[in-house]
């Protein structure tokens, strides 16, 4: 009896797993199919997964276009710098929130949550004014700074949660040995927090890689544009290049997926501790 009950459960769970997989992956599969078609075949009725126009020409068109390759390089540079900076600044703040009680803690904490609440569209014009005044307009630094600020709140919340799960005795041990708090943070807490940092880093990378509005307004010349702008440039006034758009999105998602596959063990563990005691 118990055996057959278990078997039925396994069958049901397996079916659910496949259905869930279809739900999440089918649109992506359709994206790949579309990226392989000729532009005029994408709207054909009845729709086919693969038709006689199937080729890699959209991918070749993207990869042989030097300005599009430049978009990818720009996105990498920006995203990597944002991840490093966000982690550095965020860890410092998280350490303060986790290890100290000080006047104004609650205010700072709610400030960090609530600054996320203003729609970026409204913030755009005054924010851009600051960037221009600081002579950062149309530089990588403008984008890096922007994404640093938008991803910091999440980083601080998650890293605070993570540090809270680590015993205070760890840093006290360092300090008893004559080390400073600074040393305790970087030589003890940070190394064992790598999973948490990976999870925050993944999120940050994704945000920086995919952001559109500020990238549009804060950069101006072709050599500063990022991948999302490149994709939208394919949406013309008179027609869209659907298949190249799809090809560029597929190509754009690959680095994120590789990162995820590479880091997924850490990713899962990291989210855990950060979230649970969050």
């Amino acid at each position, binding site marked *: 009896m118990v055996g057959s009950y278990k078997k039925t*459960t396994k069958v049901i*769970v397996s079916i659910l*797993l496949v259905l*869930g*997989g279809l*739900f*999440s*992956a089918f649109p992506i599969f359709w*994206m790949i199919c579309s990226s392989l078609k000729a532009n005029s075949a994408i709207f054909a009725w009845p*729709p086919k997964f693969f038709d006689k126009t199937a080729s890699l020409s959209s991918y070749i068109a993207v990869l042989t276009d030097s300005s599009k390759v430049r978009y990818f390089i720009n996105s990498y540079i920006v995203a990597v710098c944002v991840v490093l900076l966000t982690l550095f*600044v965020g860890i*410092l*703040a998280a*350490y*303060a929130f986790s290890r*100290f009680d*000080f006047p104004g803690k*609650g205010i*700072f*904490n*709610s*400030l960090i*949550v*609530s*600054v996320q*609440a*203003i*729609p970026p*569209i409204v*913030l755009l014009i*005054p*924010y851009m*004014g600051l960037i221009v005044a600081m002579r950062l307009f149309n530089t990588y630094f403008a984008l890096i*700074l922007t994404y640093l*600020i938008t991803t910091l709140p999440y980083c*601080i*919340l998650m890293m605070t*949660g993570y540090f809270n799960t680590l015993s205070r005795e760890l840093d006290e041990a360092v300090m008893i040995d004559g080390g400073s708090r600074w040393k305790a943070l970087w030589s003890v807490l940070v190394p064992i927090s790598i999973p948490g940092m990976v*999870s925050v880093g993944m999120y940050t990378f*994704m945000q920086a890689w995919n952001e*559109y509005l500020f990238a549009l307004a804060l950069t101006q010349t072709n050599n500063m544009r990022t991948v*999302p702008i490149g*994709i939208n440039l394919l*949406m013309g006034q008179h027609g*869209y290049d659907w298949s190249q*758009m799809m090809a560029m*999105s597929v190509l754009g*998602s690959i680095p994120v*997926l590789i990162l*995820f*596959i590479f880091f*997924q063990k850490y990713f*899962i*563990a990291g*989210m*855990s*501790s950060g*979230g*649970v005691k*969050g």
Partner: protein
Amino acid sequence: MKLTGKKTAPYRYLAPTIILMIVFMVIPICMVIGYSFVDGAVVSQNPEFVGLENYKTIFADSEYIGAISNTIIFVVVSVVAHLVLGMLFAMLLNSKYFGTRTKTIARVVYILPWVFTASVVAILWKLMLQPSGIVNYLLSVFPQISQNTEWLSNRSIALGVICFINIWCGYPFYMISILAGLQGISGDLYESAAIDGSTATKSFLHITIPQLKPILISIAMLDFIWTLQSFNVIWMLTGGGPVNSTETLSIYIYKKAFQKVDYSMAATAATILLVVCIFIAIFYVKQQKKVRE
């Protein structure tokens, strides 16, 4: 050496964050709040101070009221469905019925919707939901659905379809977080419950849910704020249409700011949103304090 004293230590660690936040967030936000009290902000050389006039105007605007109700539906449905789906998929990926390799592959497949930029998500679904798109083709096995079935352009279901798409591209964030939370629950709890004769449903309700509660509240809170601002997907799918039936607050604000070039009204709407979110933030911080204690 007062600067390096013990009392200032936390502030020194916080300094970079505080400076960045004040210069690049608080100052622009204050400017936005300022815009909401003048007429012709940004555009006009000499904006005129009008006090609370903009707030009176906005609450008299039926389009704004409509946008509020659409936003509430959109946000509540999205957040709840994200939670439920995220929980379901996380339980699946955590179940003991599958091998490590299956789980690894499934994990990658399940996060796929999360890695695409918003405009691509919109374009992709627009392609699929075309009258001559793949969705109508596959669903035409049902007699009610044909090449003429409308999804996004049907006023009564458009908001639902938008919610569905937002759910699709947002659940992996929950799934990953919940999955992580599940790994953190000690197996002993379930074992002792099983010894006491507890069923699977009971242990889910009495162990899993309470253990996950802090993380669930945290991510729901963040998701609530993020979904409130969700703009690109809706804008590129429907532009707020058909006939404003999918117009959320972020679309309303964009239309005011960049279509009508009425920055003051956009700022007014944004300020109201900010006030609401500050209350949520205070609640969030209080809840976090409770968890810690």
